[in-house]
């Protein structure tokens, strides 16, 4: 091969490598400095997840559930000594697992006894198209029927998780028929509320607050100054609650 062709090949290779490496560095730089600084958090989360699969509460510094209560629906005594903030996705199977599993015992042993106040906040994940309409519908139900209507629809959604619609128009019809008897009297207003995404900002605020609190997936729980991630067994929640009660 002539020297000219060899030089051309070398130049082409250098240009190729330079472009790719520069683009990579730019991409990673944007992740670090322009993407909300998520890379370090994701690396840390990844390392923790690989090294330590655990059902124990994870200690995260500077997190207090009281700071993330906002004005969302809650159950239990408003003055309960321990606050739990649950960030949940209505289409997430693990959130359903919690609702069908540990929640019942949590409610009977801690919420109904006045020890815990549970606040439910939305954390719809982008790959769950039916989560946002469900969140909007629940907020619209709460508008007319209060927290009681909210949690009745919450239970209904998780009980019928496999059939909740992802389209807003379909969702408005679907949930309008579901909320009859849940304290929602004006279904026309309810449907308009869902279709117009009246509580979009509220749901987005829940999402942002969850991210700020360090929630990386659903369900995620702030229990006092602790965080429990995932649909853990009741014992994991009990341990965290007892530690908070002892303070």
């Amino acid at each position, binding site marked *: 091969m002539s020297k000219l062709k060899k030089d051309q090949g*070398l130049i*082409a290779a250098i240009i190729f490598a330079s472009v790719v490496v520069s683009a990579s560095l730019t991409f990673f730089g944007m992740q670090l400095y322009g993407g909300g600084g998520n890379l370090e958090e994701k690396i840390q989360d990844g390392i923790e997840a690989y090294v330590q699969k655990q059902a124990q509460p994870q200690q995260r510094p500077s997190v207090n559930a009281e700071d993330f209560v906002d004005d969302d629906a809650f159950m239990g005594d408003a003055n309960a000594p321990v606050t739990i903030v649950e960030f949940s996705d209505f289409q997430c199977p693990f959130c359903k697992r919690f609702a069908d599993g540990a929640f019942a015992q949590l409610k009977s042993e801690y919420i109904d006894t006045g020890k815990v106040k549970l606040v439910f906040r939305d954390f719809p994940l982008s790959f769950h198209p039916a989560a946002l309409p469900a969140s909007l519908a629940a907020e619209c139900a709460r508008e007319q029927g209060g927290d009681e209507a909210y949690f009745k629809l919450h239970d209904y959604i998780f009980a019928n998780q496999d059939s909740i619609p992802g389209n807003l128009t379909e969702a408005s019809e679907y949930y309008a028929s579901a909320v009859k008897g849940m304290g929602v009297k004006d279904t026309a207003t309810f449907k308009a509320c869902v279709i117009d995404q009246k509580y979009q900002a509220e749901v987005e605020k829940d999402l942002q607050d969850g991210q700020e609190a360090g929630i990386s997936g659903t369900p995620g729980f702030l229990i006092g100054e602790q965080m429990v991630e*995932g649909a853990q067994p009741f014992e994991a929640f009990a341990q965290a609650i007892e530690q908070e009660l002892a303070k």
Partner: protein
Amino acid sequence: MNLAIFSLLKKTSYLFVALGVTFLMFDLAYYVMTTLPGSRNEMCVIGAGFTTLNIVFSVVMSFLSALLTVGILEVGMSKRSVSTSGLGVLLGSLTVFCTACTLPVISLFGFSLSLLFFTTYADILKVVSMVLIFIALYIVNGQVQNKCNICVN
């Protein structure tokens, strides 16, 4: 076994190509790891595949893919059956093997890459993709050394 394919990296142009391909493959793998939905620790997360093991696996696979690319280019250039344009070199180099080698190399390369990107990074699929790419490297290594028993050179 004489790993002639590694010695190709002593050539500056191939070294740069390998560097570029490694970065390119890892960037694609990184994007997939951090954006694919999944589950971890009993919860739904975005980027569940972004774990230490998957990062290490992606780095190794990216390097091996780069090595394979360099090997294919070397065989293509040495056969002198390609055009001098860059794309022509790349495409033409994929045709320089006889059918006995072309099909397995391309399919093994393709399968390895597809397993890298479109899996849930299950351990067994990692092992399969590594085995496939090592088989492809073995075939290309033989071609680089002109030791193919099937092709008549």
